[in-house]
C-alpha cells in the first residue's frame, strides 16, 4: 500500500536517476576507487593506498596551482561581481530602448563559446602590435608581453574572465534590483540618503539572496577554471600552465597528469582533492549565510 502510493513518484524520477546513476554516480565512484590505484586506464589498476594523494600534495605543481587558484578566486569573484553589479546599476538607470541596448551589449560575451573568447583575447594581448599594446603606444608606453609576463598573466586571465562572465551575473543582479520595492528608495530619499548611501544601505542588503547565489555559483565555477587559461597559454597535454606556471590551475594539472603523463589514478585523486575543496567552500558559504541570517 505504502509503496503503491509512492510508485508514480519513483517512476517519474526513474529515467533521470537511472541515467544519473549510470553516467555520473558510477563514474564518480569508480573514479574514487581509481584514485587509490596506480592506473593508466589500460593495465589493471594496482592498489597504492593514499600514495596518489600524497604524491600530489607533495608536488610543486599542486602547490603552484592551488596558489594560483587562490589568487585567482580572491580577485576574480569579487571583481566580477562588482563589475556585474556596476553594470546592473548602470542599466537600471536607463529606461526603454537604451536599457535594452546596453543590457544586450553587456550580455553578448556570455553567448560566445569560451574557446573563442580566449582566441580573440590572445590577439588583443599580443606584444607590440596587439590592440592593448597599440593603445599603450598611443600614450608612449613601452610594449608589455601580457601573456608571457609571470606578473601580469593572471590579471590577463581575470580580465577575460570578468569580460566573459559579467553579463551573466549582471542579468541576475538586475532582476534582483527590479524586485526591490521603490518605496524603500523613496523612504530613503525622504530620510535624506544620498544615491551612494541608498546603494550601500538598501540595494546591497536587499540583494542579499541574489548575491549569495551569484557568489556561490561564481566560486564553484571559478574553482573549476580550465579552458580559458588553457587556451590563453596555448597549452597542450605535455606542456601547460604558461610561463613559470603562472596560469597553472588544478583542472589543467589534472588533465595533464591524465592525458599527458597517462596517470589516471593520480588525476582522479587530484579531482577528489578539488572536489573536497569545492564542497568545503560551498559548505562554508552556506554556513556564512545561515550565520548572517541569524544576526
Amino acid at each position, binding site marked *: 500500500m505504502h509503496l503503491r502510493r509512492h510508485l508514480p513518484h519513483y517512476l517519474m524520477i526513474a529515467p533521470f536517476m537511472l541515467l544519473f546513476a549510470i553516467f555520473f554516480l558510477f563514474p564518480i565512484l569508480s573514479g574514487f576507487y581509481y584514485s587509490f590505484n596506480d592506473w593508466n586506464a589500460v593495465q589493471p589498476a594496482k592498489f597504492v593506498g593514499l600514495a596518489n594523494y600524497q604524491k600530489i600534495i607533495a608536488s610543486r605543481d599542486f602547490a603552484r596551482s592551488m596558489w594560483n587558484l587562490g589568487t585567482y578566486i580572491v580577485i576574480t569573484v569579487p571583481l566580477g561581481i562588482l563589475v556585474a553589479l556596476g553594470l546592473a546599476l548602470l542599466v537600471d538607470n536607463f529606461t526603454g530602448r537604451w536599457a535594452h541596448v546596453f543590457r544586450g551589449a553587456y550580455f553578448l560575451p556570455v553567448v560566445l563559446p569560451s574557446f573563442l573568447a580566449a582566441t580573440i583575447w590572445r*590577439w588583443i594581448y599580443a606584444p607590440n602590435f596587439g590592440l592593448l599594446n597599440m593603445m599603450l603606444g598611443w600614450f608612449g608606453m613601452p610594449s608589455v*608581453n601580457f601573456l608571457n609576463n609571470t606578473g601580469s598573466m593572471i590579471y590577463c586571465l581575470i580580465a577575460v574572465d570578468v569580460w566573459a562572465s559579467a553579463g551573466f551575473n549582471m542579468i541576475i543582479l538586475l532582476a534582483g534590483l527590479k524586485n526591490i520595492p521603490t518605496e524603500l528608495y523613496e523612504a530613503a530619499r525622504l530620510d535624506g540618503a544620498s544615491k551612494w548611501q541608498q546603494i550601500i544601505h538598501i540595494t546591497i542588503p536587499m540583494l542579499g539572496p541574489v548575491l549569495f547565489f551569484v557568489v556561490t555559483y561564481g566560486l564553484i565555477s571559478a574553482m573549476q577554471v580550465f579552458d580559458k587559461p588553457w587556451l590563453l597559454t596555448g597549452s597542450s597535454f605535455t*606542456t601547460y600552465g604558461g610561463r613559470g606556471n603562472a596560469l597553472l590551475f588544478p583542472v589543467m594539472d589534472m588533465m595533464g597528469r591524465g*592525458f599527458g603523463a*597517462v596517470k589516471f589514478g593520480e588525476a582522479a585523486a587530484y579531482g577528489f582533492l578539488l572536489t573536497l575543496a569545492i564542497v568545503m567552500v560551498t559548505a562554508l558559504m552556506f554556513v556564512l549565510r545561515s550565520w548572517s541570517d541569524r544576526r
Partner: protein
Amino acid sequence: MRIISKLQGGIAGLLASVALAGAGAASAEGVTLEYWVYSDFAAGDALALQQQFIAEFVAKHPGVKINITGKGDDDLTAGEIAGAASNTLPDVFMNGLNVGAQLASVGALSNIYDKWMAMPESFRAQFNADAIKSCTPKPDKMYCLPYTGFGSLLFRNLTVLQKAGVDTSKVPATWTEWFEQMKKVKAAGLYAMPDTTMVFNSVAEIYGTTGDASNWGIDWATHKTRIDPTVMTKVLQKFIDMVPLNSGTSRNDQATKDLFIANQLAFHVVGPWVDPTYKQAAEKNGLKYDFQLVPGDTPDKHGGIKSYEIVGVSPGPHRDLAWEFATYITAKEQMGRWATLLARYNGNAAAMADPKVASQLLITKSVEAVKYAVDVQPPYFVGTVPSCYLATVVDIAAATADGKYTAAAGAKEMISQLNTCLAE
C-alpha cells in the same frame, strides 16, 4: 585561398570517401582498418595522396577497407590513449616521437621488432638509421616506423635584412655573424627574432647551436638530465643577448608568421611547415624570403632540432595486415611521392636521395639540417618526460633572459631543478 582548399578540402573529401568505402564494404567480406593521421595529412592534396595509397593497398588486398581519420596534435594523443583504455584503438596511427613513451606504456603501440626483422634487408635499409634508432629503445623492442620529420631551418626575410643593411648573399656561418646581423636589424627598428625562450622547442633549437646530442636529453638510468652546465651557460647568455632584439612572440605564434610576412621580422627558426604560408605570401604580397641551416658556434656546426612523426601499429586482431599497410605507406615509393607532392622531409632516406625528391630545395636543406640537429626530447620510448621537465627548461631560460639569474647561475639552477623534477 589555395591553402584552405588544400588543407580543409580534405575533410569533405574524407567524408565522401568514407561514404564510398562504406558502400563498397557491403559486398566485401573482411577487414576494416582504422587509420589515424594528423589533420593536415587528411586534408587537401595530402589526403588525395593518402587515398591513393589506400586504394593501391586495397587493390592488392581485396576485401580490405581502410578508413582514414584526421586529428589535431593533442586530439590524436588523447584519442589514442582513450582508445587504448577502451580497446578501440585504430589499427594504424600516427603521432609524434615525443609521446611515444606514453603510447607504449599504455600498450597502444605493439612491439614490431620481429616483424621489422622479418622484412627484407632492402626495405630496412631505406630508412634513416637515426630515426630507426629512435624507434628502437632496446635491442629487441621496436615501436614505430618513422614517417615525416623535420629539422629546423632558419627562415630569413630578405626585405628586412636589406632594410637593415645586411648583405643577404652572405648567409651567417656562425652564431657570432648571425648575432651581428640581428643587431643590425634591431638598429633599423625591426625585430630580429621571435622570443626563443617561450617554448621548449625554440630553447632546444638555440641549445643546438652550442650543444649536441651527447649533452642533451635525459639519462633515464639515473633519472638525471644530460644537459651540460657549461653549454647551458653559453646558451643562456645568448638568450640574455637576444632580449632587446626579439618580437615577444613565440616561434609557434600565428603572430610571428604575421610579423614575418609584414616585413617586420628578420629571422624565424622553425620547421618547414611554415613554408606553404610564406610561399603564399611571396606569391600574393611579394614577400622575399629564403631558408638556411641554423648557424652554430663554429662554421662546421649547426643548431636546431629534429624530430619525426611516427607510424605505429596497435596490438589488435588485424595487427599483421596493419603492419603490412604501415610498411606500404612508409616504403620508398610512397614516401618519395609524398615528399615530391608536399616538399616535406621524411624518414625514408632512400626516398630523400631520389633525384626527383632531392631537387626540391626545402627537402635538401631539411636533409642537411637533420644531420646536425639535436633530437627534441631524447631518448624516446624509455620514459615519459614529465611536464615539469619541459616547463623548467622554458621557465629558467625565460627567467634568465628576464635578468633573474646570471647565465651561469641559471644553468646551475636549471639542472638542479630538472634533476629534482626527474626524481619526483
